[in-house]
């Protein structure tokens, strides 16, 4: 019966790359994969993510230095896509409707905040300029509600299936915004976590401002960076300015957060009020991704990267490190991964876990490989080896 259940289950891996999106599917055994794509050929697909409330509803961030931002939406599990509100309108007099790619900072007196400046690379004030959507986070309960983390850092919300967007301006305008500075990849809001135990609680992270929390559904925000130490800012324990690379949370233990910072792997047991370092015996604690086992809230995964100046894996070996103790004690997972001459990176949104009984772990590399483990990381196999550089990986567990 267990085997039958595994085969009946399906796993869908959503992969965003520098030159399009791919959808990888398998049954619950996860040993044979079908690769579909590329979708949106030639465009950078920063992120795709499906609605937990409707697995056929998938959102994608399609972006280009030439043509800007496009939001795509699928209602059939990725078979077909549309730019919401962008239906062809043959009437010459009709007013254009599409606003699905319109991300305008809210400066209205009633709902918004003044458009201040942030710090630029040269330390001078710089106006906020929308560049792209880094991360899409669908609501846990409503398929038509989705959040977008954008560059320059801000969070937007749509309640009409990504047809239109409104900034949650309390984040950009809560007070520290004028001090935020971009990281090397831009000033991006790259992480959005919704708390399943409290619909009004949200966590976000910005490079290089830090982590922030809202307890009122995104209306007001405050920094949650106590305990972080960053030697690359004048005051290493400042309230903001930390280059948080990614945060992960197991939905079954929502108060516990794990963070991969520019350097340092951290955890918080009180929803970000205080952080402590858990790098322990990692060979290097620089990296981008971090994720948590679907069923074991104290089992976490990172991929150590050599340094901030050398964005490839340490010692030319692709190793996922797993801690079963919530940090500090780490073991290298190498079976099936290249252990010589490997110089890839694993970017911040490019790791995910499935929810099958034997938790699957997935990650993509800048070398275009997508690896899967059907045994919680003990062994790995490449699903596909030669995609464009992978920007993001998300997983759906379908029954």
């Amino acid at each position: 019966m267990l085997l039958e259940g595994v085969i009946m289950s399906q796993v869908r891996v959503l992969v965003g790359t520098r030159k399009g999106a791919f959808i990888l599917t398998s049954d619950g055994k996860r040993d044979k994969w079908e690769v579909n794509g590329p979708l949106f050929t030639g465009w950078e697909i920063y992120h795709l993510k499906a609605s937990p409330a409707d697995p056929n509803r998938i959102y994608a961030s399609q972006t280009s230095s030439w043509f800007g931002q496009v939001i795509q939406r699928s209602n059939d599990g990725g078979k077909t896509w549309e730019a919401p509100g962008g239906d062809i309108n043959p009437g010459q007099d009709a007013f254009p409707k599409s606003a699905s790619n319109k991300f305008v900072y809210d400066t209205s007196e009633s709902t918004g905040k003044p458009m201040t400046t942030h710090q630029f690379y040269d330390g001078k004030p710089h106006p906020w300029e929308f560049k792209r959507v880094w991360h899409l986070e669908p609501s846990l309960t409503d398929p038509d509600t989705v959040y977008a983390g954008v560059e320059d850092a801000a969070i937007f919300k749509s309640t009409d299936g990504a047809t239109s967007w409104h900034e949650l301006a309390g984040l950009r305008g809560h007070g520290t915004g004028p001090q935020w500075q971009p990281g090397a990849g831009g000033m991006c809001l790259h992480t959005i976590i919704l708390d399943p135990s409290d619909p009004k609680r949200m966590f976000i992270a910005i490079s290089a401002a830090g982590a922030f929390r809202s307890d009122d559904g995104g209306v007001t925000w405050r920094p949650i960076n106590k305990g972080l130490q960053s030697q690359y800012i004048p005051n290493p324990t400042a309230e903001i300015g930390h280059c948080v690379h990614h945060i992960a949370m197991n939905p079954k233990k929502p108060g516990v957060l794990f963070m991969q910072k520019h350097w340092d792997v951290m955890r918080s047991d009180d929803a970000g009020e205080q952080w402590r370092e858990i790098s322990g015996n990692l060979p290097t604690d620089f990296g981008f991704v971090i994720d948590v086992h679907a069923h074991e809230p104290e089992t976490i995964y990172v991929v150590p990267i050599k340094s901030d100046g050398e964005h490839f894996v340490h010692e030319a070996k692709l190793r996922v490190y797993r801690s079963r103790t919530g940090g500090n004690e780490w073991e290298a997972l190498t079976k099936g991964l290249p252990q010589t001459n490997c110089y890839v990176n694993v970017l911040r949104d490019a790791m995910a876990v499935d929810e099958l009984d034997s938790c699957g772990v997935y990650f993509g590399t800048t070398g275009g490989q997508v690896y899967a483990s059907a045994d919680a990381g003990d062994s790995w196999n490449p699903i596909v080896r030669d995609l464009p550089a992978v920007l993001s990986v998300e997983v759906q567990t379908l029954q």
Partner: protein
Amino acid sequence: MIRVVLPQHLRTLAKVSGEVNLEVATPVTQRTVLDALEARYPMLLGTIRDHVTRQRRPFLRFFACEEDLSHESPDAPLPEAVSSGKEPFLVIGAIAGGM
């Protein structure tokens, strides 16, 4: 009828192949052509001109009659050959290397 040639990625996004033909009221200018294009194909909003400023996106260029019109006023009349439909108005993705 005004003829507009889009770069491949925008043809894909608009689900068209080949040239786009548009009815554009006079005067025929960059602005009126792009307004008509976006009215007909709303998914192109924001991909050629910024949603708010309506400025041309930096890596795009407007050519016609072997001339680069990118820096002309958006309200300047386009060449007669464009407004008569003899020559197309071209939206060009600037050549740029990198990724």
